[in-house]
């Protein structure tokens, strides 16, 4: 009901985190691509309200189910710059996009992907679910191969490939000598592309659906035998660029040893380059940085918790001495406690003897007396009756919880009314069911 990009994280749409980071890196010409006209209207409305004078944002609509590559194909004619940064709207991160683009430009790469460590979900959460997670291995999202300097991307496996044995081509290993393979990193879905290359790949491979699963692996695979620069229209232009590059290579060569790409490109006698190569770079977000994608309900909960918890610098709020945020207009009843790592939005009211722990409560919520909210996200305009107990749940806007409702690990849909005295565990409640 709410576009994913507008889901509230600490009472702000998740998209705002990305936009803010981009703004910080001084990237101001943005195109926000939204799937489906409905969602586009809402996202566009929100952006124009929030960023009207700060960012130059265009909102483009693409039909549903075209995939990320399809979306870029659709808006290709809008792109003009030499390099394009592609970020997923659900990324909550404090890694400066500027660092990614800098790495990209430094190597004159075709693509630079940001990778980060795999998030450990539910680790900081105490209790049974946390213990369970610890016994499990952290999930694997990608298998990533890099050169020893951790600058170049040599191998990437996603999705179904993870279930199979990893196959690595010897030719690239021969060229590099050493490849570090990591299973504990994942693709954060922030890419810098060389525009002309990206467009050419999209044009040529019209079956490519997803950047992550098709385009990126393709570019990585073909890096030692680049087809992009050989065939297709921009050949002349590329040749010229290559000419310029040679000069700059020589300048760079003084500063650093040539990368294996250049060594490989050289002929056997060290003569002029005979092979066409392109570079795929990586930018590894350091462990101290926060970088999570909001792509599941669990992730949504985790991010909400983290943003007001460990990664609170992201939220942009000032925390009180109790390590929580209570909007001045919020009203608290007597003997109500709001613990650390909590947030209470503006105009929310709480009755007596309530306790809130590690939770986010949106704007204009009405919460009765004797209510317990633990590890949960309560969106705006939610009414919670007396004596409710909410644990590990998400309650969407305008929902209504009548008296003595007990929820554990539930999701309550927008405008849903939970009748008095009900107890639910691990269910998702939405209006449709009614």
């Amino acid at each position: 009901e709410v576009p994913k990009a507008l889901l509230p994280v600490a009472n702000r749409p998740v998209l705002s985190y990305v936009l803010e980071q981009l703004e910080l890196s001084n990237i101001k010409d943005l195109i926000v691509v939204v799937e489906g006209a409905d969602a586009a209207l809402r996202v566009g409305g929100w952006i124009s309200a929030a960023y009207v004078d700060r960012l130059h944002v265009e909102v483009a609509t693409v039909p549903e189910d075209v995939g990320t590559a399809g979306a870029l194909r659709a808006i290709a004619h809008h792109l003009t710059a030499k390099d394009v940064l592609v970020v997923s709207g659900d990324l909550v991160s404090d890694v400066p996009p500027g660092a990614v683009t800098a790495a990209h430009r430094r190597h004159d790469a075709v693509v630079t992907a940001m990778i980060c460590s795999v998030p450990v979900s539910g680790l900081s959460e105490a209790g049974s679910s946390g213990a369970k997670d610890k016994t499990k291995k952290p999930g694997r999202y990608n298998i990533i191969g890099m050169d020893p300097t951790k600058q170049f991307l040599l191998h990437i496996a996603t999705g179904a490939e993870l279930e199979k044995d990893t196959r690595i081509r010897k030719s690239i290993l021969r060229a590099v000598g050493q490849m570090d393979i990591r299973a504990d990193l994942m693709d954060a879905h922030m890419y810098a592309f060389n525009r002309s290359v990206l467009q050419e790949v999209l044009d040529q491979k019209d079956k490519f659906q997803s950047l992550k699963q098709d385009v990126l692996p393709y570019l990585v695979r073909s890096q030692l035998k680049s087809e992009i620069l050989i065939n297709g229209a921009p050949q002349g232009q590329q040749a010229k660029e290559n000419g310029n590059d040679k000069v700059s290579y020589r300048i760079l060569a003084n500063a650093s040893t040539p990368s294996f790409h250049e060594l490989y490109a050289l002929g056997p006698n060290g003569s002029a380059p005979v092979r066409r190569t392109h570079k795929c770079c990586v930018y590894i977000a350091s462990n101290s940085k926060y970088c999570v994608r909001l792509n599941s309900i669990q992730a949504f909960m985790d991010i909400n918790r983290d943003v007001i918890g460990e990664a609170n610098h992201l939220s942009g709020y000032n925390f009180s001495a109790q390590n929580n945020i209570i909007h001045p207009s919020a009203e608290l009843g007597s003997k109500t406690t709001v613990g650390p790592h909590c947030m209470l939005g503006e105009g929310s009211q709480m009755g007596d003897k309530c306790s809130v722990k590690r939770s986010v409560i949106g704007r204009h919520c009405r919460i009765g007396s004797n209510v317990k909210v633990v590890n949960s996200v309560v969106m705006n305009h939610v009414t919670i009756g007396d004596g409710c107990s909410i644990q590990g749940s998400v309650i969407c806007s305008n929902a209504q919880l009548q008296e003595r409702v007990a929820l554990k690990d539930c999701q309550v849909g927008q405008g849903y009314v939970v009748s008095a005295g009900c107890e639910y565990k691990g269910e998702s409640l939405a209006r449709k069911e009614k």
Partner: protein
Amino acid sequence: MGAQKKRAAAAAAAARVSEDPDDLARQPLQAILLADSFTTKFRPITLERPKVLLPLVNVPMINYTLAWLEAAGVAEVFVFCCAHSKQVIDYLENSEWFSQPNFTVKTIESHNIISAGDALRLIYEQNVIHGDFVLISGDTVSNMSLTQALQEHKERKKKDNNAVMTMIIKKSKPSPITRQSRLGTDELFMAIDPNTKQLLYYEDKADHSKGTICLDKMLLAENPSISLHNDKQDCYIDICSPEVLSLFTDNFDYQHLRRHFVKGLLLDDIMGYKIFTHEIHSSYAARIDNYRSYDIVSKDIIQRWTYPYVPDVKFCGNRATKLERRGMYRALEIEQSRSAQVGSFTVIGYGTKIGSNSKISDSVIGEGCTIGSNVLIEGSYIWDNVIIEDGCELRHVIVCDGVIMKAGAVLKPGVVLSFKVVIGERFVVPAYSKVSLLQQPTVHDSDEELEYADNSSGTVEFSCTADQSNGEMTSESSEAHKPKLGTGGVGYIWSICEGGQEEEWRHSVAPIPEDKLTELSEAMDDDQELVTQDRTALSTSGELISDSNASEGDDNEDSKDDSVYFEKEVEATFLRAVEENVKVDHVILEVNSLRLSYNMTSADCAGAVFYSMMKLAIKTPHSSAIGLLTLYPSPFSMVASNAYPIYLSGELQQNTANIITTWQKLLKSYLLEIDEEIEIILKFEEMCLESAKEFSPLFARILHILYDKDILQEDAILRWADEKEGADESDKVFVRQSEKFIQWLREASEEED
């Protein structure tokens, strides 16, 4: 015995644990030196002299190894002699190694050993190794310090009893063109855990052909981070725990140290033994595996990378040699003509005479050689007591003891002259040939390790007799083989058979010729192109493009195959059921079990069952049709076959109706929903077009029968007709054929409404 041994080892381990680190270092360290490489790479030279005694810059190889072991703090060395064991033992007895303080050399002799594995098994039986030991072969040159590697090994061993071996590796990037290292060994792929340095994967030549490395998914599940190396070289120096010996005994099929033992341990996840690596950075370690590494290691020694094991430092068995400018080493008592030019990086042995105007560069000349005038020697290895007459040319060759080259003889690059060969006047020995007094063994055993040992055990005596009866031998062979090595030449040129000439240049002393390099780099480009072509071919067809995706394609094929097999199985089951009069219920059971094992839907079952039924229906009339056809003489056969459908259609229809009636229960049990019924119609259509064209004129009628028997509902037929509405004209043949019937169905349903 084994138990005793293990107890001893355990006791030793316990004793070690209790000692403090300082004592650990003082624990007498043992080493096993294999004085036999169990390969045939140095033939024909090794037929007459063991590899470890071949001179490397005028010092037998084994001396480098022993000197290093002594310096590295090894207290006791077991030299395992196999081929030419007598020569090795004699040499060691006469050398100073037996009289060193704090360093004991013991020899173990065996003649019926054919591999390193056998050797270690024998040593295990002798029960002489009590603690950690260094496993090395007698052709290794190194100057590394063992302390750190040993320390690491012991610490790991203390923590994890399964860490049985530490391999020494060294950085060395193989040439991307020839795909072999500087030492001429094949490229090596290793996966190493960057944190623990555990070896996880080891691939050498044995599985060379594949273009990809396949890492088991479990490997990545257990280790989040792996380093894949193509730029490392195996030094063949291993620090082993005593368990290694018992492992060899337990696995009696382990022969080769790397191919069997290392890979065996890596694959075996039951015992959980682990191998670790230790990388050396600044020190030297290399094994002489082939002629090319002989060449390279010699050059390294001359250029002092192996210091202190260099010609001018007396370590063992080498004569006093002086280092002069430009890397020239000269022993004493050299007679050199004033006009002779001796170039850089050359070693000249004791008592050698060099005539006027001869040019020598980048070469090693042994002791007591006589070199005439106007001789050109470049990049060559001349051993002791060689006589080279005037005007000879030698480029990148190895010339063994006692060879005589008559005036004007020329050796092309890569030639190896074994002991006491005589090359005739102005004879040109072609490149890469190997010349020996002994004839090339004709027995070709597929197992190279076996071959060496078999022959060498025999050649010990043989070479002795050759020595004694040298006079006769030479006269005989010179007569028999005069044309082969020119006038006065003695010896046989070995024909190159194993590996073929193709590979000869890879391991020869001569540098790789230019044309080979360009050829190879072109081949490499082709390789790449092939890969990319595959890729583009796939990507244009809309498939994803990686290897795994290619295998996805396989999966699709698999499933296609599956359905074909499934159909066949169902048909077979059905036919059997008809023949043996099996009850319908049983057939249903059988088909169900097939369905489960092939993971098929009930629609597939319905299709398959229907298919088998129709096939059966054809069979009976079909046979009679053939009978009929053969009755007609050939001109009429055309007429007959045209007439055939009309003639037989009645019978066929009758047959079909019968079969459908008998087996309708079977078919119905799979027709749970309308989709399956449509599947049957589609299947029938397909049959009519392809495998059973006999039905095509009967399509509408059989459809009617199926409807009458309540197998197909009118809904299914109408849906099928609707679906076909938009199809190609060719697809609509049967819809049109059954148009009347469909029309009738439509009207009937409307009437009902």
